[in-house]
């Protein structure tokens, strides 16, 4: 296994200093906040959703380089995608983009906090627009099995 410190490559450092899609959206269609109870990282995500597509997405909050880099990458992946596609984004999609597949357990939570917030945001958006209660149940189960 490669050394843990190897994860601090150029791209991560750059993203952490210059995060992409950082900020707030005025009048977002959906917004969600969550934090990591153990380390105190906290992330907010705002989205505009037009025609079942994520037309705009921004995040803000506090976190380590890993958290900032992953949030940047995640919002880049998400922007412009259809809701169903976003629903299918996996942790692998985020981690592999940054070469973080082998992150240790306690740091995984830093890397995936923004994914958790994104999915929660999506579910709360979908929940509001769903009529079929079976769909809502499926959504809840998905949310529960996030990590």
């Amino acid at each position, binding site marked *: 296994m490669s050394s843990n410190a190897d994860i601090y490559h150029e791209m991560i450092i750059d993203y952490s200093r210059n995060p992409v899609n950082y900020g707030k959206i005025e009048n977002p269609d959906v917004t969600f906040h969550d934090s990591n*109870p153990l380390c105190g990282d906290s992330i907010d995500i705002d989205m505009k959703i037009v025609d079942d597509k994520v037309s705009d997405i921004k995040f803000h909050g506090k976190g380590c380089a890993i958290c900032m880099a992953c949030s940047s990458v995640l919002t880049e992946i998400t922007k412009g995608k259809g809701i169903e596609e976003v629903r299918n984004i996996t942790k692998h999609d985020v981690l592999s983009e940054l070469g973080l597949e082998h992150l240790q357990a306690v740091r995984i939570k830093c890397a995936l906090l923004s994914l958790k917030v994104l999915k929660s945001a999506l579910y709360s958006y979908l929940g509001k627009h769903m009529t079929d209660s079976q769909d809502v149940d499926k959504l809840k189960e998905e949310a529960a099995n996030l990590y």
Partner: protein
Amino acid sequence: MQSTQISFEKLRKDFPILQRTVRDNKTLVYLDNASTTQKPNQVIDAITDYYKNHNANIHRAVYALAEEATELYEATRDKIANFIHVKNREEIIFVRGTTEAINLVAYAWGRTHIQKDDIIVTTEYEHHSNIVPWQLLTQEKGAKLEYIRMDDNGELILDDLDKYLATGKVKLVTFSLMSNVLGTITDAEKIVSKCKEYGVLTLIDGAQAVPHMPVNIEKLDCDFFAFSGHKMLGPTGIGVLWVRKSVLQTMNPFHGGGDMIREVHKYETTWNDLPYKFEAGTPNIADVIGFGAAIDYLTNLGMDNVREHEIELTNYAIEKLSQINGLTIYGTKDISKRGGVISFNFADVHPHDVAQIIDEEGIAVRSGHHCAQVLMERLNVAATSRASFYIYNTKEEIDSLINSLNKVARIFKL
């Protein structure tokens, strides 16, 4: 399933204390297992190994030791889930023991769910830890505590339960799966299914059952379940509260502090995910890990085999004790309905005197009320002597007990 050819005699070597002598060079015969059990080297070594190689606070730090300690700690949660057949590991909360587990329910569930005139039902053969928390709660709330009575055979009179349930006021029924005095095994599935008809929650005190027989929480289908590590080869200071997730989600936090929070602000705070919401402060990390080793040990033996071994010992002991003139055994003699706990009285000799005299012969039994004074009142005795068995006990040890009782008879001229 394990083979039933396990040599229980051979596993005695895992327990260093069994090599000890006490008093005047007498071999220790430890028959107070319902109170606490002895510990095998495997458990002691797990604790030692933790302190010598992995000690660190858990969940919060990124360095190597903390990572290792967290993994070891959380592994026990999985072992427990497996051992008592629980699907959701986040339903398992680490506490000091059964007593804290039940009190946690009384505070974090009871304080918000019990109101004036509500009824909580317990039984006449409960340990104080399944009575006093409910007295405190019902007195505070103006609610009522009622008892399912016990018949002369040491079994519960379930008509009492029907009567209370019919009032529509019962909010919780709580009972031990095995009595720590009589060894009676409660017909839990019947009680739970009656309660479910009325939508009433059930708490099972598994302190005596989990160490001695296979327990399947899914099958029991109760809502709360409590037990202690030290009564099943594990260290002191660690126990488990299991709560069905849908009930756990309706509960307030118990202790406030580190680890159980999500975000703390000056005037408001949000809670961590389950089960951490209920595990405030630095937990008893080393003993959780030691407890994991105890569960491994019992899993390897196979709980069916443990139960079988104890049935053999209990049958043998009841047979021998029954032959002693003037000796009364309490509770049922039907072995399918009881575990390896035998309470008795010997003529007019007080149990303390019995215990003290046989202690001179190296025999450790318990005498007193066994934290079950309500049951003592019901049996109309001040106290009993109690011998209780575990995996390392042998028939020879029961013979020693019988011999020592002869000395009691001599001294008291029975």
